[in-house]
């Protein structure tokens, strides 16, 4: 097992970029193994935000934010998770692009938590 977050941090830092406050609140509570910083998706340049924050992982709940996060992550080994609430899909960005991590199940906050833990602690999320 290998942790992928920055070694100067005791816990990984997760940027949670949301468009649905209720979903963000549920995810923030569920991701109990990381420091979570939440940001509204419609407030400014997400790539610039991520560049300044330097998170160890990004979780988003809307498509434009997912695109922006994937652009930021393209030059870094950074887990990006996109929870598409309306389509009931959790996608994880890996070397080959986005991969469905839900396997047909209706994802909840626990699904996101576990996929994120896999991606951060074992690098497993992206290969799911």
């Amino acid at each position, binding site marked *: 097992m290998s942790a992928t977050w920055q070694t100067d941090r005791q816990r990984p830092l997760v940027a949670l970029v949301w*468009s*649905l*406050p*209720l*979903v963000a*609140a*549920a995810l923030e*509570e569920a991701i109990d193994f990381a420091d979570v910083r939440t940001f509204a998706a419609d407030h400014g340049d997400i790539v610039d935000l991520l560049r300044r924050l330097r998170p160890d992982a990004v979780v988003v709940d809307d498509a434009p934010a997912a695109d922006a996060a994937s652009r930021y992550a393209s030059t870094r080994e950074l887990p990006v998770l996109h*929870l598409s*609430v*309306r389509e*009931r899909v959790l996608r994880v960005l890996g070397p080959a692009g986005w991969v469905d991590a839900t396997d047909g199940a*209706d*994802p*909840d*906050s626990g699904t996101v938590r576990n996929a994120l833990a896999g991606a951060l602690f074992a690098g497993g999320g992206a290969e799911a």
Partner: protein
Amino acid sequence: MNPTRVVVADPLRIFRTGVHKLLVREGDFEVVEAATLEELAAAVAERVPDVVLLDLDLPPHGGVEATRQIAHASGARVIVWGFGLTRGQVLAAARAGADGILRKEISATGLVRALRGAVRGEAPIARDLASVLLEALHGVDERTNAIERTGQLSPRERQVLGHLAAGARNRDIAVLLAISEFTVKRHVQNILHKLELPSRRAAGALYHKAYGPPETAAFARGGA
């Protein structure tokens, strides 16, 4: 104080569980989840909820149909919510008996406040959706007013008004009603006088407000 009993009826698990946890944390709510209308009906029968938070996409027939059934069958306040609500959905939900209409983009604090308000008899409505309901209400008022005004006309005058609204000339109306053109002219004068309108065009517009497009459109000027 008794806890507020809430049924969260939503096909999306993340919303069901998210709202459930949020409300339980508040301490004064009891929550039951339902993913379908069948589960909702069972929960309502068993728990007699104070509030039902109902998603517009609730299977199998959608939230409007579910609202119609639940609002009439229980004393619960029904709050409908959804993504990107259209004008039609808002009006349909209101007509089906919804006591409140919210967007799923609402904040946690906003949702808790809305549910508590609903229990007190308030009608929580997303601010941008309130205008939809008011506009619809204004439309109904205008129509009612127009119908009342035309109600003072005789049946024959209303008939003539319908032809006027369709754009027919006096000569056309005379032929259609088998009366003289002079009589039609008298009817038109009476109509304008009774309705206190300045022109045939204004009379036609009032007819449209009251009854919509006249069925006599085929007799309009172009066809005469």
